[in-house]
């Protein structure tokens, strides 16, 4: 197999993987973040303390996490078809990927949010803030470095699962490696793909680490390490 031939196969597959992982990540964060926050809020001593709800959420999350991904994928077949209109292709693969990643991500977020200093929660309560204020202005912003690290971990886990999803009709790099490397004994090609996945994973990890460092360094290092630059309050102190 020539390099040109490899490339011709690789780029579309890479694009498929990125789309699959990208869309699943967005969906996972959108749904998993509230779930993780809810797990903290409904726990004992939380602002929405509710033992039954907390127990049920916890049980559902644990159950979903203990299902092997391949089983989850098969179990979700008809749901996927109903939602996406097909059970093949990268679009279809995003459904089980998202469903599988939500509980994983939610647990990570739960840990991140629980680590926010209890004193900050009290400070907001003492100011007369409600639960929504607490979540939006304190818990999530303060837990943000941890949450970003959790997103990184989740994206990388999704890349791993996307390879598996690929082999059962999802397409992408995993599928390519399986079809050519394993079924057609194109070992060299397989290693090229593995190397490419490794590069993608590394880049994501580095980018994630960088973002976390930026966020966590607010107020420690120099004044310039600021990812979320406060908006337009420059003129106030410029004088």
């Amino acid at each position, binding site marked *: 197999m020539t390099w040109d031939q490899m490339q011709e196969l690789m780029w579309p597959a890479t694009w498929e993987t990125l789309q699959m992982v990208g869309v699943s990540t967005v969906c996972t964060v959108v749904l998993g973040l509230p779930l993780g926050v809810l797990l903290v809020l409904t726990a004992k001593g939380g*602002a929405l303390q509710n033992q039954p709800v907390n127990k049920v959420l916890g049980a559902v999350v644990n159950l979903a996490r203990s299902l092997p991904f391949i089983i989850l994928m098969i179990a979700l077949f008809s749901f996927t078809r109903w939602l996406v209109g097909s059970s093949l292709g990268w679009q279809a693969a995003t459904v089980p990927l998202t469903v599988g990643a939500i509980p994983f991500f939610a647990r990570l977020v739960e840990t991140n949010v629980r680590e926010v200093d209890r004193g900050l929660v009290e*400070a907001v309560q*003492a100011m*007369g803030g*409600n639960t929504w204020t607490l979540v939006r202005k*304190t818990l999530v*912003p*303060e837990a943000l470095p941890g949450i970003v690290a959790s997103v990184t971990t989740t994206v990388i886990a999704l890349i791993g699962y996307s390879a598996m999803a690929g082999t059962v009709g999802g397409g992408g790099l995993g599928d390519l490696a399986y079809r050519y490397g394993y079924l057609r004994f194109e070992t060299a090609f397989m290693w090229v793909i593995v190397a490419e996945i490794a590069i993608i994973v590394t880049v994501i990890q580095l980018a994630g680490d960088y973002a976390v460092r930026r*966020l966590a360094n607010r107020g420690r290092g120099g*004044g310039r390490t600021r990812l979320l630059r406060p908006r337009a309050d420059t003129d106030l102190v410029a004088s």
Partner: protein
Amino acid sequence: MITTTDLTKVYRSRGREVTALAGVDLHVRPGEVYGVVGTSGAGKSTLIRCVNMLERPSSGTVTVDGVDLTALAGGENRAGKDLREARRRIGMVFQHFNLLSSRTVQQNVELPLEIIGLDRTQRRRKAAELLDLVGLTDKARSYPGQLSGGQKQRVGIARALAGDPKVLLSDEATSALDPETTRSILKLLRDLNEQLGLTVLLITHEMDVIKSVCDSAALMRGGRVVESGALTDLLARPGSELARELFPLSEFGTGHPGATVLEITFQGDAPAQPFVSQLARTYQIEINILGAAVETIAGRMVGRMRVELPGSRHDNVVPIGFLREQGLQVDVIETANGAVA
């Protein structure tokens, strides 16, 4: 301004009960700085947290500025609307500052203003005013992580003042600070008290804090207030434990066996008389001065002196009476050989 009546708080955890407050009656007058002292575990934090319902009292009532907070719905973890409104009028500062590390100093001060619902321009103006008040204008865009402890507490104070509270609660606000920073924070609190007419309820374990900023104080032990009142009254109260703590003479000698030891307290506006020599002259007795000190407490000069008179207490009834007639406060204290006053 703050009144608690028969306040109790019982913590229950795994069948065990801890009584943190066992019937506390506290009365803080408008515009005063009121200090609460006591040993660790006495219930001081529980008390102050009950004042803004961060902790729901088990029984009793808390009234702040005429509003009975205990009657408002909601509790420790989730407050009802009325309670949240009421809390906006009660500022609180914390031992560990509790500033949001994700926000700049200015944004931290703006947080309560966001909760109140001011728009951006108003928030900015108010935050600038508050930072000016605490002397941190140049740090508006820094993050809490870039500030010293004293600066952080100033931000904490500015934030607590954002809702124009009438009452400021402070739980060991200076305990994490060095003595000099402590002094500057206490001075700030005192200034705010005077400039804004702010009523301050503060918890501390340092008598020096009480001495330098408080008008009144309460001593807590085992969930109860064992002594309370205006400092000037406390100092004039015979056998007052707080007064003795505020003004310790313990490092002085305790006298000889068989002698009578007196502690004489005199306050600034009482004429400074040479009462010792008068006493010696009038009764022809040998007076031994064990120690004396003068300090400023609650803005007044207060002096205390420990003297030893020969003979038992019975022998000295007349001289003691003489001193009391001079308007001095005289406590007869236990002597070295165990004779009780």
